[in-house]
C-alpha cells in the first residue's frame, strides 16, 4: 500500500468500546456468573475504635444457604503491603492493614469477618447474625491534635499517631521572612472526599484444583502487583494466579488497589474450591474504599511590596486514616511535592506529618496531593494579593518561573529528609498562563463580575495555577504481535473508562503505518501480558505509548536483519516492512517483539483554572457559571478523549468543592454513607467546562507526552475557593476547600465562623 502516511497521533479518533457500552453489552464484574458461584458478604466494624473482644459466627453458620464464615483466627497473619518503594518507610510498614481485624478495630467499616452463602441475599442476612463484641475506645479524629499526649493511640504498638514527618527545606526561609514586607498566616483545611465511581468494587475468584490456577476477575489498575500479592498469600506461583480486568465502571485512583477483600475472596475460593463473588454495596463503598484528601495546613507566605513572592513556611497534617494502605505515604508525599507550584520562591520550608486517625484509610484520588496543595498555595496567593492590594492575576504572572530558567530545580537543602528534588524539566509557564486567561475570557469575566455586583449580586472570579507531577516509572513493557489481521498490542495497563485502548492503538497504527482498525489492544489478562505496573499517576499513555515506540524500533532492527539492510533503511508501510531495494517482510513474519520504556522521575506539567461564581447569601449556595482550564499535555495523542478526561476531572473537582464531603461525627461515625448524603454533582449544578490543551512537548520521553487523565481536577478547588472568596469579599474568610452551602451560610451569618476553619458541615 502506498499513499500518504497516516497521521493518527493527535487525531480526534472516536473512542473504542462505545458501541458495545451503548448497547449495554459490556461485562462488568457483577455480571459474571460462574457455575456453582457463591456470594461473600463482609462483616464490618460498627465502631470507630475499640477492643475486639470476640467475633461469633456460629449463629450465621446455621442460616440456610450459608457455606462458610471466616474471622481473623481462621487466616494467617497477613499485612497488605505498600506497592510503591518510594512511598514506603520502616514506620509505615508497622501500621499496615490485615484483611480482618484481630484485637482492635480502628474505623467504622473495618472488616472483622466474612460470610459466604449460595445466594447474595442469604449472605447479607447471615452477616447480620455474626455477633461482634467490641469494647469501644475513644477515637482519634483531630488531625493537628492527633499526636498530643492526651490522645489515644490508633496503633498502641506503634506508640505514636504520626507515622512519619516529611521535611523539605529550600533556601533560607527565616532570612526571607525577615525581609518580607507582607506576611500572611492562615490555617487551611482540605475536606475528605470519595472518588465514588458509579460502579462499586467487586471480585470473582475461582480456584481450579486440577491445574492449581487461581483466576480473579475484577482486577484493575495494578493487576500485576495484585497477582504477586495473591500468589504470596495463597502460596501459589505468580504464573498460577491470573488477574483479569473486565469492564470497569470508573476508577479514579481507588479501584484496583489491593484491599482486604481481594485477599479474602481469593482465600475463600481456594479453600472452598468454588467460585466466590463479592460485590461491594454503596454503603460499604463509602466506608471501605480509600478515602482521600483530608488535610490541615498551618501556612505563612511572605512577599515584598512590589509583589514578589518570597517564601512560605508550612506545617501540615495529612490524614492517612486508620492504616497505611498500598499507596504508602503518598497522601503526605504528594502534597509536599506540589506545594511550591509554578512560582519562583526564594525559600520555603515544609514539614508535613503523615498522621493516623480512626477513619477509613486514605489513598489516592484523581489529582492526589496536587489538588490539595494547589488549593492551599493558591488560596494563600490570593490572600497575599489582597494584602498587597494587587490583582491576583498580576501577582501570579509576575512570579511564574520563566521559560529561560528551565530546567528548574528547588534543590532540597540542609534539614530536608530523604526527598527527591522538586524539578521542572521545561515549559513556558507565563505563556501557558496567558493561554488560560484567553480561553477563559478573563477580561469578559471581570466585566461580568462588575455588572453582577452593580446589580447587587455576590459575584466573583477565581484563578489558580499549578504544577502536576505525573507519569511515574519505573517502566512498562509492550509486546507487539503481528498476524494476518494486523497487530496486537499487549500492555499491562488498565482501562478506567479513559480510552487507553484507543490512544495506544493510534500510536501503534501511526508508527507501523497500519489501519487503525487493524490494531487490537490487549490489556485484560495477566496470563497474556508482559510485566507492567498499571494505570495510575496519568502514566499509561506516556509509559505504554513509548514502550510501543521502543517495540517498533526493535521490530525495525529485526526487519533489517531479515532483509539484510540497515535499520535506518527500514520503512513500515501498510502492514509490511520494506528495506529499500531489499524487498519486504510482513509484520507477521517479524515475530512477536517486546519493547520496554524505562522512565526515571516524574514529568511536571503546568496548568491552571479560572471560574466565575456567584454566591446566594440567603442559603449560602455557590453557583459556578463558567469554568475554564488549561493544561500542558506535552502532545495530545487524542484531543477528543483528552478533552473528555480534562472536563470530566474538572466536573468532579467542582462537585467536590461545592457539595461533596465525607463527614464524621464526634464518635467517628461516618455521616456520608449513601449517595443521598454524599452529594455528587449532576448536569444541573455543573457548568460546561472550557478546555485549552497546551502542547509544549516533553523531553522526558521520545513521543513527547505528559500526563493528562487527572489534570482537570488539580486547579479546581483553588479556582472555586478563590472565586467564592472574591464573591463574598469582606463578608467571610474562605479557609476550606469545601464551599458547601452550610459552610458559606454560616461564614456569612456568623463572623466567628470562617468558612471551614474547622468542623464538618454537620457540626458547623
Amino acid at each position, binding site marked *: 500500500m502506498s499513499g500518504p502516511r497516516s497521521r493518527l497521533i493527535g487525531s480526534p479518533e*472516536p*473512542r473504542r*468500546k*462505545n*458501541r458495545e*457500552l*451503548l*448497547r*449495554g*453489552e*459490556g*461485562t*462488568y464484574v*457483577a*455480571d459474571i456468573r460462574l457455575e456453582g458461584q457463591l456470594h461473600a458478604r463482609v462483616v464490618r466494624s460498627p465502631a470507630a475504635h475499640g477492643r475486639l473482644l470476640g467475633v461469633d459466627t456460629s449463629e450465621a453458620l446455621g442460616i*440456610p444457604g450459608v457455606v462458610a464464615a471466616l474471622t481473623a483466627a481462621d487466616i494467617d497473619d497477613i499485612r497488605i503491603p505498600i506497592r510503591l518503594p518510594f512511598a514506603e518507610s520502616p514506620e509505615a510498614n508497622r501500621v499496615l492493614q490485615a484483611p480482618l481485624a484481630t484485637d482492635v478495630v480502628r474505623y467504622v467499616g473495618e472488616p472483622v469477618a466474612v460470610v459466604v452463602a449460595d*445466594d447474595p*441475599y*442469604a449472605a447479607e442476612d447471615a452477616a447480620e447474625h455474626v455477633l461482634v463484641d467490641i469494647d469501644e475506645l475513644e477515637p482519634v479524629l483531630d488531625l493537628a491534635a492527633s499526636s498530643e499526649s492526651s490522645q489515644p493511640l490508633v496503633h498502641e504498638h506503634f506508640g505514636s499517631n504520626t507515622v512519619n514527618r516529611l521535611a523539605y527545606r529550600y533556601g533560607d526561609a527565616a532570612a526571607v521572612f525577615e525581609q518580607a514586607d507582607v506576611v500572611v498566616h492562615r490555617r487551611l483545611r482540605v475536606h475528605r472526599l470519595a472518588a*465514588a*465511581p*458509579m*460502579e*462499586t468494587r467487586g471480585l470473582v475468584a475461582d480456584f481450579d484444583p486440577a491445574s492449581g490456577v487461581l483466576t480473579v476477575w475484577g482486577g484493575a489498575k495494578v493487576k500485576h502487583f495484585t497477582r504477586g500479592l495473591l500468589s504470596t498469600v495463597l502460596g501459589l506461583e505468580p504464573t498460577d494466579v491470573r488477574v483479569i480486568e473486565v*469492564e*470497569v*465502571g*470508573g*476508577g*479514579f485512583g481507588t479501584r484496583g488497589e489491593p484491599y482486604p477483600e481481594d485477599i479474602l475472596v481469593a482465600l475463600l475460593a481456594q479453600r472452598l474450591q468454588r467460585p466466590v463473588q463479592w460485590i461491594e*454495596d*454503596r454503603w460499604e463503598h463509602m466506608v471501605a474504599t480509600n478515602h482521600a484528601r483530608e488535610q490541615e495546613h498551618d501556612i505563612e507566605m511572605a512577599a515584598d511590596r512590589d509583589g514578589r513572592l518570597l517564601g512560605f513556611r508550612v506545617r501540615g497534617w495529612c490524614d492517612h486514616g486508620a492504616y497505611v494502605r498500598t499507596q504508602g505515604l503518598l497522601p503526605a508525599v504528594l502534597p509536599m511535592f506540589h506545594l511550591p507550584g509554578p512560582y519562583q520562591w526564594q525559600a520555603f520550608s515544609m514539614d508535613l506529618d503523615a498522621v493516623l486517625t480512626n477513619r477509613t484509610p486514605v489513598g489516592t484520588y484523581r489529582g492526589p496531593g496536587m489538588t490539595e496543595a494547589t488549593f492551599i498555595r493558591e488560596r494563600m496567593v490570593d490572600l497575599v494579593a489582597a494584602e498587597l492590594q494587587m490583582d491576583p492575576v498580576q501577582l501570579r504572572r509576575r512570579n511564574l518561573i520563566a521559560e529561560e530558567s528551565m530546567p528548574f530545580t528547588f534543590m532540597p537543602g540542609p534539614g530536608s529528609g530523604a526527598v527527591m528534588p522538586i524539578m521542572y524539566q521545561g515549559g513556558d509557564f507565563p505563556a501557558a498562563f496567558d493561554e488560560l486567561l484567553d480561553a477563559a475570557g478573563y477580561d469578559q469575566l471581570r466585566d461580568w463580575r462588575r455588572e453582577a455586583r452593580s446589580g447587587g449580586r455576590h459575584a466573583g472570579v477565581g484563578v489558580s495555577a499549578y504544577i502536576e507531577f505525573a507519569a511515574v516509572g519505573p517502566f512498562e513493557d509492550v509486546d507487539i504481535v503481528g498476524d494476518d489481521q494486523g497487530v496486537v498490542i499487549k500492555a499491562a495497563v488498565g482501562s*478506567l*473508562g*479513559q*480510552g487507553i485502548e484507543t490512544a495506544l492503538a493510534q500510536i501503534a497504527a501511526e508508527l507501523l503505518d497500519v489501519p487503525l482498525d487493524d490494531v487490537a489492544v490487549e490489556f485484560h489478562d495477566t496470563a497474556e501480558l508482559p510485566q507492567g505496573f498499571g494505570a495510575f499517576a496519568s502514566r499509561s499513555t506516556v509509559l505504554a505509548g513509548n514502550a510501543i515506540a521502543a517495540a517498533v524500533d526493535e521490530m525495525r532492527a529485526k526487519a533489517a536483519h531479515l532483509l539484510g539492510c540497515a535499520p535506518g533503511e527500514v520503512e513500515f508501510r501498510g502492514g509490511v516492512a520494506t528495506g529499500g531495494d531489499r524487498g519486504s517482510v510482513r509484520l507477521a513474519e517479524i515475530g512477536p517483539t517486546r519493547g520496554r520504556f524505562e522512565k526515571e522521575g516524574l514529568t511536571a506539567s503546568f496548568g491552571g483554572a479560572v471560574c466565575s461564581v456567584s454566591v446566594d447569601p440567603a442559603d449560602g449556595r455557590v453557583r459556578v457559571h463558567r469554568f475554564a482550564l488549561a493544561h500542558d499535555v506535552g502532545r495530545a495523542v487524542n484531543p*477528543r*478523549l483528552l*478533552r*473528555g*478526561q480534562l*472536563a*470530566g476531572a474538572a*466536573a*468532579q473537582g*467542582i*462537585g467536590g468543592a461545592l457539595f461533596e464531603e465525607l463527614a464524621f461525627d464526634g464518635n467517628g461515625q461516618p455521616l456520608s454513607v*449513601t*449517595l*443521598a448524603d454524599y452529594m*455528587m*454533582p*449532576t*448536569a*444541573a*449544578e*455543573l*457548568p*460546561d*467546562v472550557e478546555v485549552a490543551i497546551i502542547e509544549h512537548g516533553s523531553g522526558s520521553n521520545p513521543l513527547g507526552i505528559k500526563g493528562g487523565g487527572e489534570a482537570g481536577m488539580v486547579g479546581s478547588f483553588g479556582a472555586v475557593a478563590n472565586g467564592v472568596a472574591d464573591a463574598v469579599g469582606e463578608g467571610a474568610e474562605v479557609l476550606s476547600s469545601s464551599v458547601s452551602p452550610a459552610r458559606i451560610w454560616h461564614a456569612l451569618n456568623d463572623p466567628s465562623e470562617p468558612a471551614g476553619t474547622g468542623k464538618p458541615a454537620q457540626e458547623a
Partner: protein
Amino acid sequence: MTGSGSPHPWLGPDEAAPVALTVNGTALEVRVPPRRTLADALRDAGCTSVRLGCEHGVCGTCTILLDGSAVRSCLMLAVQGQGHHIETVESLAGGDGLGPLQQAFDDNDALQCGFCTPGFLMLIESLMRSEPGAGEERVREVVSSNLCRCTGGGPVVAAAQQALASNRDGR
C-alpha cells in the same frame, strides 16, 4: 411458612413466586422470592445492562422503562412487575448497530466508563416519548435525575438535545 399452593397468601422470604413480565416485547416468566428486587431479577434473567450503582434509588443507573415510564428498578420488587411491560437498553437498537439516541451519545462523547449509560439512555428515551418538545432547561432537569461520575452529565444533556432535535425533524 407456607408455599404458594397453600390457602395462606403469605410467602416466606425465600419462597419463590412466579412472576410474568414482558421484557423488550418478549414474555418472561421468572420465579423469585418476594423480597427480590426487580433489578436483581432482571439481572438474574440475563438483562445485565440493568446495573446497580447504589441500590437505593439515587444514582439512576438501574433505570428501565415500566409501561413506558422511567423507573428505578432497584426500588421495585420483582413481584410488583407482574403483568407489566419492561424495556431495557437492548430495545433501543435494531441489529448490531446503534439507535439514534445511542448514536447521539456517541457523537457527543456522553459516555466514558459506560456504567451509568444504559440508565441515562432509558431516562432520555422516556423523555423523548413523553415530551418530544422538551427544551434545554427541561432536558437538563431530567438528565440531572441520574449521576454520571465521568462526564458530569453535560455531554449527556448535549446528546439528549441532539436526539430530541433529530426526532422532531422526523429522522
